[in-house]
């Protein structure tokens, strides 16, 4: 009864979700957003360590010029191509450190692959560990000696009570 009701609720929720998903998908990209995105993928080269569009030093010798260059690139022939064209233009002019993230390919790929690989390895390792431990536990329960705690005052029963208290406390 409860199962059926839950399934109905879940079904209705999914239908609603799909209906909403179908609403107004246009996927357009406006030039302002593109300027913001590319500007946030570059660092200011004035050594302040801040993202280009966030550098707000008084009299910063570089950020205003770089922002103008970015606007010129967006308005020029590179503006119709991929973001990487504009980013490459900046890398050629200022060096690789102008990029806010390692996206040049080659050794830069290692920066992205290693964390993902470590996370996947960790997940698989943890899952295997959990499986191994649960299997060992079920084997131990199947072959282990039966506990004998007939007397409620025995030290074994006391230990059991203490364990139950610990394990149900929080």
């Amino acid at each position, binding site marked *: 009864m409860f199962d059926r009701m839950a399934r109905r609720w879940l079904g209705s929720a999914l239908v609603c979700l799909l209906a909403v998903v179908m609403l107004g998908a246009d996927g357009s990209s406006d030039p302002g957003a*593109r300027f913001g995105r590319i500007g946030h993928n570059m660092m200011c080269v004035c050594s302040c360590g801040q993202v280009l569009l966030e550098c707000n030093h008084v009299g910063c010798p570089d950020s205003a010029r770089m922002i103008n260059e970015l606007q010129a690139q967006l308005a020029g022939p590179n503006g119709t191509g991929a973001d990487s064209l504009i980013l490459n233009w900046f890398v050629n002019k200022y060096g690789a450190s102008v990029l806010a993230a390692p996206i040049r390919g080659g050794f830069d790929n290692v920066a992205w692959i290693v964390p993902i690989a470590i996370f996947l390895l960790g997940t698989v390792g943890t899952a295997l560990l959990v499986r191994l431990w649960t299997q060992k536990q079920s084997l131990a329960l199947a072959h282990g000696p039966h506990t004998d705690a007939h007397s409620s005052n025995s030290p074994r029963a006391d230990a059991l009570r203490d364990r139950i208290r610990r394990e149900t406390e929080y």
Partner: protein
Amino acid sequence: MNQHPMPEFGSFSLLIALMLSAYTLLAGGFSLWRSHHQFAGTAALAQSSRLQETARRAGICTFLAVSCAAFALVYAAFTNDYSLSYILHHTNRELPTAYKFSALWSGQEGSLLLWSWLLATYGFVLRVRHKVDVRLSAYASTILSSVQVFFLLLLVFAAPPFALEPGPLAANGFGLNPLLQYPEMVIHPPMLYLGYVGFSVPFAFALGALMMRYPGEKWIAITRRWTMVTWMFLTGGIFLGAHWAYSVLGWGGYWGWDPVENASLMPWLTGTAFLHSVMMQEKRGMMKSWNVWLIFTTFLLTLLGTLLTRAGLVSSVHAFASSDIGNWFVGFMALILAVCLFTFFKQRDHLATENRLESVVSRESSFLFNNLVLLAACFVVLWGTLFPVLSEYIDGTKTTVGAPFYNRVNIPIGLFLLMLTGIGPLLAWRATSLRSIRRNFILPGIAFAFSAAGLMIAGVRPWAAGDTWQSSFFSLLAFSLAAGVTTAIFAEFLRGANVVRTQTGANLLVATGILMRRNTRRYGGYLVHFGVVVMFIGIAGGAFNQSHEQEMGFNDAMNIGPYHLVCQSYTQDSNANYDTDFALLDVTKHGKHVTQLAPEKRFYHASETSSTMVALHSTPLGDLYVIFEGRNPDTNRPIIKAFLNPLISWIWVGVLIVIAGTLFALAPSVAARRRESLAAAAIPAHAEVQHV
């Protein structure tokens, strides 16, 4: 002879402190070694115990000596003693009193002295409370004194805060870095350091317990409060720093993934993992080796953070000083790691697990995954911080790893963690039945689905967001998960309160109070989780940030979101400490006057540097954040940049809830108090027997 006595007094105090802590280490270590190799009851054992007591007292006196040195430096700052190089470079006569006090940690030498003083303070408390467990405390005290010796060696030989300035006495100092002249900067560094240094104590207890093969898990109960208090300070310190960055740096954000910020986040992540996984050891005797290594790693990460930022290994906007003390840190870290490895391999049979995991669907496995996620996040931060060094070594090019990298990798990890925050507490220890899963998860599941649908109807549609689809998707997921997790937490409260209400007949509010007092640890933990959810809501609001920059003369207007800003005036002012350039902006919303904002740009005379003073109008729904960027040199009119940051105040409220939850969890529950009073009633008889 110098007319100011403080340099000599301070230097002498540091030397005395070094000798005392070296005595604590050597005498403590020798007495422990002797007692370990003698038969109980012999005269040598009594001698060892006496020697140990002298070591403990020397440790207590170290605190007094380091306090004298810290007092000497602060006194020198207040009396404008520019014969001291440190005071000359970090203060000036016009500096307000509170900031003269904060000069203690504004430079490298002073911050190392603060570190040393806090360590001595923690050591003092540990040694005074040694009766909790005399032998374990002796081990912890000796280990702690080794860390103290290292920092005092640095202060005496490598970075002396009482070094004299050569040449004639200067009339005025160079002033404090303007970025540090902000009220939060008076409390942020000490709080962060309380967190950093505090992890030395659980580290010392864990290493000590392993060295002496401490029976049972009592050491965890002893160190639980230390760890939680330390974690709370670190949390508070990190977020005070984030709030400072938001209010002072003027770039509209609060977290820039700078190496110094990363250095504080890494031990916080491993410390959080330790706080969770240690429960498995306490309750089920599992994960002993893992826990030991988690706390070792946390302590080593606090040292690594200092190494990264002080040795100039990675560049940081926060690195207010760098020097060659990095070699000292590398040496000390290598020594600590060697001691940890040696002790672990020598005593690893003592860390054998008592129980195995019984079910995949259990609280234990949720803790395992929680640890995995937290450590993965920590690894990402460490990897990103060190990658520029690695790329320069391998590729010859120093690659920048900035916010886009961390956001792209850590946001999914963070959302996974948010999900576990809701799932974990709903699972039972050992194994969770299907019925229980169904009962506990149906409401949070419904809340998740309804909020996702509601948000999509309200306009949060990643597929329609174009270039920003990723941030839109992540914020949608974060808000929906937050709704699910909040429902899960409140359902737990409600379920428990209903049981209490049935038992006592009290109303729901009173019943909730009784429930929480019965088990402060559990419900304090839930409050912490709720605080984390609130913080995530604030962080997810960042997906909808807006900004607008404009030159504004008299009566010029700017629109951002629902706000309409009109420039009423712009002018300049001056005082003894700084010149200021500011604009007065009237803010209206839907035609109604809201507030007047005055963003400033200051120029500090002593240090000849500029600083931004942000003007902020904060509401629960969002902040209007306005900065004075400077003046257009052609028109002499101010350039104003305004940000609309939705939900950002939720982050600060979330932190307050986290701290309140931690404090609540630290309070003894009714059951614990009852057990303690029963134990106290039993002690006189026990003590009498011992005395006889």
